[in-house]
């Protein structure tokens, strides 16, 4: 197990290194932050731009800049954003916000999709199955920004129950998390249903039923545990996708997380911020996948033995 984790950590380091290198190179190809900063500054001369570049440290060779960033990443100093703000402070504010939103969305989705998926599987072909599948299809067809806007229209503007946007008390997380969560649920319900259907045909389920166990015990204790590997793998992978999708949801709900930070950084060519955000997000995705792998061992003793 220790060797396995060590190997995965080495992989994680490589992934973060590769991803940040690609991002650092790519964003530098898209344009000059000095021009961005000087936009509208009347007659900007080449000397003005050169001065701004020098102040931002952009006149140095790319590798120097990149290794300085890597060094900072290791020592925990993420540098200063081009608008003069310490990146670590920006990240310290944004990361918990994003993690909270992602976690609540994922929990929402898991809690809703497991009972619904099981219900659909046990009622295969009958009306509960049909209804759940139709709703899941509708959910899959919604773009998340549209669903978010509709929520705002309904619950904030028309009913005035919830704040339209912003980040504050528990009421502010309801709509963004429900938007993300519902869209995840649409996929997850189908996944749970499929995995469950397969498991329910196993002989041991027939044995369990023959023993006279209650249906709930059969489903939630025996069947669900065997589906868990598939589900955990998928939920883990989803976390990565979730962090991508959150960019749009964060914008719609003015949620000040990593997505907003990355979006603004791209728009302003704010290299230090974007590099830091990408590095941290990729690190987290690698980490979650590592946790998923470790979870396998707990879920299935056979994997642990290997």
């Amino acid at each position, binding site marked *: 197990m220790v060797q396995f984790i060590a190997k995965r950590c080495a992989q994680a380091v490589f992934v973060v290194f590769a991803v940040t290198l690609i991002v650092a190179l790519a964003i530098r190809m*898209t*344009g*000059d932050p000095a*021009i*961005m*900063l*000087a*936009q*509208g*500054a*009347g*007659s*900007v*001369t*080449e000397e*003005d731009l050169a*001065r*701004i570049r020098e*102040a*931002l440290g952009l006149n140095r060779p790319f590798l120097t800049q990149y290794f300085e960033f890597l060094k900072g990443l290791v020592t925990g100093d993420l540098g200063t*954003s081009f*608008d*003069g*703000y310490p990146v670590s*402070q*920006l990240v310290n*504010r*944004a990361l918990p916000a994003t993690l909270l939103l992602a976690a609540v969305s994922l929990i929402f989705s898991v809690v809703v999709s497991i009972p619904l998926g099981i219900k659909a599987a046990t009622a295969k072909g009958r009306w509960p199955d049909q209804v759940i599948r139709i709703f899941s299809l509708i959910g899959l067809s919604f773009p998340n920004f549209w669903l978010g*806007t509709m929520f*705002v*229209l309904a619950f*904030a*503007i028309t009913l*005035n129950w919830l*704040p*339209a*946007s*912003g*980040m504050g008390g528990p009421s502010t997380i309801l709509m963004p998390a429900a938007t993300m969560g519902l869209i995840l649920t649409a996929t997850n319900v189908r996944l749970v249903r499929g995995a469950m259907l397969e498991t329910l045909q196993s002989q041991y389920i027939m044995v369990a039923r023959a023993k006279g166990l209650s249906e709930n015990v059969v489903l939630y204790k025996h069947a669900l545990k065997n589906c868990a590997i598939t589900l955990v793998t998928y939920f883990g992978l989803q976390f990565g996708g979730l962090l991508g999708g959150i960019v749009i949801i964060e*914008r*719609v*709900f*003015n949620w*000040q997380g990593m997505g*907003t*930070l990355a979006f*603004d950084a791209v728009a302003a*060519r704010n290299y230090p911020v974007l590099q830091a955000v990408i590095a941290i997000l990729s690190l987290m995705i690698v980490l979650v996948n590592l946790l998923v792998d470790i979870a396998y061992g707990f879920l299935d003793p056979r994997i642990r033995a290997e």
Partner: protein
Amino acid sequence: MFKPTGLRVALLAASVAGAGALGTVPAFAGGTLKLGLSQDAGSWDPIDTFLVAWAAVSTNIYDGLTYRGPDMQLVPGLALSWEELDDGKRLRFKLRQGVKFHNGEPFNAEAVKFTFERLLGEEGAKGPQRSNYIVIEKVEVVDDYTVDFQLKAPDPVLLTKLAGYGAMIVPPQYIKEKGEDYFNTHPVGTGPFKFVTYEPKVAINLEAFAEHWGGAPKLDKVEYHFISEPSTAVAELQTGSVDIVIPPIIPVAMIPTIAADAKLDVVSIPGPTVDALRFNTQSGITKDVRVRKALIMAVDRDTIIKSILAGQAEPIASFQGRLSFGYDPDLKPVPFDPEGAQKLLKEAGVASGAKVQIDVRANDATMGEVAQAVAAYLSAVGVEATVKPYELNVLLNDIIPPGKTGEMFQQKWGGWTFDFDNTAYSMYHSGEKWNPYEKDPEMDKLLESQRNITDRAKREAILKEVGKYAADHALEMELYNSNAIFGVNKRVKGFDAPPDNRLRLTNVTVE
């Protein structure tokens, strides 16, 4: 169950206010105004930025030596008066006495000297503001309340520039004690509102500075919330979470939503931004002035404004709006005349099916539609136009300055000084970054000749001539001067929309 909704609170407040008016307690003013702003400036230091979003907030925190309000007239700010000496190469300012910064530090000639030495020195060199003020050679303290600006050459726009952005007066002691980084996020000025808290990417909050020299503001508190998504900003306006949405957030398409809400008003006024499709005068069919004129005649710009921009813009005849200094009301836009265009094209020997490429900013949805409409009009006179969207930075960095554009390219411009020199010099003078194609000694001479004159009438005449010269040579297809669109809750009173977004809130109240 009692739920304190916005309406109930408002009613409660009104009833309390009403009771006060009837009884002995005076009716209370004050209250909190919440504004939606598209962007967080990141740093509130005047020399660090060029963002309109910075100015929208900071015009309440800082003062300049001069002040320009929504009526665009230049009036005394921290300077009570000024005079030109040495043929305009020295400006002497008499300063207002008894003014204090929010931290208690006195405002005087030393503060002015410090402000400009900082702007023109090492600290200013890191930011984009310095280049606007390099005409200032040095600032000399004559006495505590008199300063001289020694200029390299007379600069007719300097007094306007002193009313905003990099020229905002900053507190010397405070910056020396707390350091530059601290000042970025804890700004102190002499303005009508003082800084309270700033949460990056979320909000900046101010409160009234009762000792302001212009009189105490009527509001108690002001909150600016950063909201970049237009639909989110409008939703916040509809729910009453913000009272004013400052441009540029509200797109033309969302005006009906706001107009339909009985609680809200749409206030729109001509802003500083002008749009044109400039011509490549070096290659392609647009090399010929007759072709350029024909292309301008072929496009019905009034209809484009009415349909695509929902009337939220004004046609222009030179590359400036009507609030700009140098605007010529006698210069009229070229009328829509497709037959005339075809005749001119024929005269210039342009065969039907000739090609032009229109380069636009990919992130500008409105211009995307406008360019398509222009292409359709051009095809009606036999010119085949293709629209090529570029990522903003690529267009501004790699396409326009090195002269790699198609026959036509989008230029969006808007200087807060509202002085045509700012636009014209950058667009038309040889060797300027934004002028990759034109090298015209006559134009250069015209542009240079107005730069050192401080006589307003003379300068205005020359700037009008510049506009006319550009129009005669058909250097660009003028499109429009876009409106700045504010969304305002009707509970806001005393709101006077400024064309430059620098919304000073001294006289604003909320019900």
